[in-house]
């Protein structure tokens, strides 16, 4: 078989390649190699591992909420703030009692503000919450905080979304829309926003004055307030229904962006279904941490209220503690003082990806956002996994 093809080529080229290689290496300089590269720097402008910030100002709002203006903490090595797209969040590193956790908050300020070296986070007290009362009660001007880089996909994408966004917001779900509204007024994003914003009473609407100012400044942003607990002229009354969406949505193509608490999703998703929009025209922000998994379909009966043993393998070490059936494994880890890595706390981002060594967990079916092969190889997202037996978990730490 070999040598059957006749070729007028010189076989010595093959033998010459080694001397050529030696000569090329010998001729090269022995100067130090570059330690950084332009595109790695570009990447870090969006994705720093951590950002160290100082609270420059605190503003108190009606409705038991505060806004924190955060600026770079140069003494701790942060000189500028990461760029982001309106709708993204950062996770705030918190130590509350013996718990260590990452809690996501949408950036409320505009992307252009980040270039002016400030973020604003607006935090509203959630009843029975863990992180928001701590922040509202302890964060003061001058305090140092550590946050992650921006994450999340609740952003306007011109190649995907309609040019007109209809936003449905409830409670603290308003914050990503304020960032988007600001991005529209300052020219960062080129789209229209009609926002249906549900609150309880006219007094105490979070960021109302701020939105009034945006609407006065820019015709591309409209806000309709819907009050559940009060009838008042100039406001819609009730909840965000299919009829209300139809009333205010534009005649042509539009994308629905939805952000609010779980109770709002439960109601509003039924209304959205009535509109029979294609799936690509409806986008939800992360719904956030959930408890009480028995509310979701397929939860094994008789597990409510039970307690199990969680064994955690970290490198060569092991720890054991108890965990409750009603709480995610991530919360159980955090209660034990383990700073497990997490970002979205909604089962979606995969940051807490960990190996289930043994035991069984329940994952609400519509919230199982793992990769297909994860199931095959026994990987779970602890933030959306609830123990239904004793569980052993291998955790990756940093």
């Amino acid at each position: 078989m070999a040598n059957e093809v006749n070729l007028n080529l010189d076989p010595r080229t093959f033998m010459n390649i080694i001397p050529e290689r030696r000569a090329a290496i010998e001729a090269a300089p022995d100067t130090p190699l570059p330690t950084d590269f332009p595109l790695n720097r570009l990447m870090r402008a969006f994705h720093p591992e951590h950002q160290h910030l100082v609270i420059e100002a605190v503003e108190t709002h009606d409705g038991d909420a505060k806004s924190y203006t955060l600026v770079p903490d140069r003494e701790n090595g942060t000189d500028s703030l990461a760029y982001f797209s309106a709708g993204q969040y950062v996770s705030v590193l918190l130590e509350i009692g013996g718990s260590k956790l990452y809690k996501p908050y949408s950036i409320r300020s505009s992307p252009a503000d980040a270039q002016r070296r400030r973020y604003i986070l607006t935090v509203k007290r959630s009843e029975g919450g863990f992180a928001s009362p701590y922040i509202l009660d302890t964060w003061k001007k001058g305090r140092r905080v550590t946050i992650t880089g921006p994450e999340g996909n609740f952003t306007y994408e011109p190649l995907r979304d309609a040019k007109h966004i209809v936003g449905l917001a409830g409670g603290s779900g308003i914050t990503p829309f304020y960032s988007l509204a600001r991005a529209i007024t300052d020219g960062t994003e080129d789209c229209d926003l009609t926002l249906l914003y549900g609150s309880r009473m006219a007094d105490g609407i979070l960021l109302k004055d701020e939105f009034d100012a945006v609407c006065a400044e820019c015709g591309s942003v409209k806000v309709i307030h819907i009050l559940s607990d009060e009838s008042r002229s100039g406001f819609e009354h009730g909840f965000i229904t299919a009829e209300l969406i139809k009333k205010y949505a534009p005649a042509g193509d539009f994308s629905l962006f939805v952000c609010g608490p779980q109770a709002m999703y439960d109601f509003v998703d039924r209304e959205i279904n009535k509109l029979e929009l294609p799936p690509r025209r409806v986008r939800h922000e992360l719904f956030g941490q959930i408890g009480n998994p028995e509310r979701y379909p397929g939860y094994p009966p008789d597990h409510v209220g039970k307690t199990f043993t969680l064994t955690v393998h970290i490198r060569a070490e092991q720890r054991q503690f108890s965990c409750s059936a009603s709480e995610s494994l991530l919360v159980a880890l955090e209660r034990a003082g383990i700073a497990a890595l997490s970002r979205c706390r909604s089962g979606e981002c995969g940051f807490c990806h960990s190996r289930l060594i043994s035991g069984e967990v329940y994952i609400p079916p519509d919230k199982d956002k793992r990769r297909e092969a994860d199931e095959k190889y026994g990987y779970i997202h602890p933030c959306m996994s609830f123990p239904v037996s004793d569980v052993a978990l291998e955790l990756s730490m940093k």
Partner: protein
Amino acid sequence: MVGGIATEFVSVKERGENMAISYDVVVVGAGNAGLTAAAVTAKTGLKTLLLERHNIPGGSASSFRRGRFEFEPSLHEMAGYGSAENPGDVRNIFAELGVGVELLPVKDAFRAVITGPDGYDLVMPTGIGNFVRMLEQEVPGSAESVTNFFKLAGDVGMALGYLGKGKPDPQILQTEHLNFMKVASQPVSVVLNALNMPKKAQHILLTYWAYMGTPISEFAFALYSIMVHRYVDMKAYIPKMRSHEISLGLEKCIRDNGGEVWFNTEVVEFLIRDGRCYGVRTKDGLEIHARQVISNVIPHRVFGNMVDKAAIPVQELKRANARSVKFSAFCVYLGLSKSPEELGIKDYSVFISSTPDSDEQRRRMRTLDKNDFTIMNCLNIDNPGCSPDGTSILWATQLYETEAWEGVTPENYKATKNRLAKKAIEQYETAVGVKISDCIEEISIATPATFARYLDTPDGAIYAYHASGWDAMLPRIMTMRDEQWVQGLLFCGGHGTRTIGYSSTYINGYQTGQMAVLDLKGGH
């Protein structure tokens, strides 16, 4: 209960320097080659630890989810896997290591759509006979030269088998492998001209070049020919659950054989003393000693950022400075709300350009706006269950030299990537007459900066060092041992002997693992 857990809050430094732990083999980086090397050493009973800075294995061999879609980030087609009846190297390696993954064959070789004046649009089949016949139909008179191309590729394969057995006898090379000697280190274009292959047939045969990032006037014949031979003869394969499945499968082999894998563990230093690497140090201050360290991290990073300056051999600096690293990718991942049937898509991979000339294609990759070489894949064609009924996954890839991205700033980054993505989508729509822009349900765009984030390579390089001339596959293989300037430190990956690509890095990882085993168990 054991305390002292390493967290972001409690540094391991508090344990003190004398707490160094030790392994037979420490592998740094869980890319394809790092995973395979660690699986090999663990399987032979060596105490093995694989360290990875990310939370999942694989590097580019991964997946990511958006909405109801799970995207493949990088694997277009794996060469050298083969069928159960006619297995290739990679299938054999996976079988030996016990990697239980399911790979699916890609039916056709490719569709090439050249839209310029000398344009053509044809679907090339797999099977050497079919391929030659189709090419003869398109370019009459090409059959003999194309047949000879595949014969030479077979000769190259046999010679590589001989070279793999140890130090070659020059006499045997001259007599048994003369054609190999003639063609191996020649650029592909030189050999094809010597075969009197018509220009158009060359262009069609060379369509695959973009998978490797080296234009045909530089690409050494040896590697290109065996790659094309494998694709056409054995078909390409893709994993059912995206390449994340392969990476988790390899990780499982490491664990099943007693090895350890630590994620979220960044190595910041390779410890070298008296010309020998004896371990690594992690970001949280843990010192890990090893009899053998294997780096899946590119030498530019190791000797640029991760070794004490005084301990770097001059030869390592010279070799790294002699090499160039400058190629990355731009990818647009699309989840569409229509099925391939509704859209009229029949092809798994379409290569689109306005010119068939690979040198010209390559020149245009130095600019953002002139580059119009786009590969569009529809995963559903050969992996029908990859997305829900009534949907499809499309994915566009363009290669760029990093200099093309010099003018991109954080301020214009998002607008730039959207502009390029729009252009790639429109180019596909025009070239194949399929409308996709009105049914985009999910979109994600990866730029060289994205690859820099996940791979931490210089400028997001996906193809390590430019593999041509003196730094092509064969010269790397033949100098592998001579150029080991730090004892106890082996490199594996795209910067390794087999150069880049999925099958190359699995094979290179396997061979590097075996070298480590030989060094540790072979009586040294």
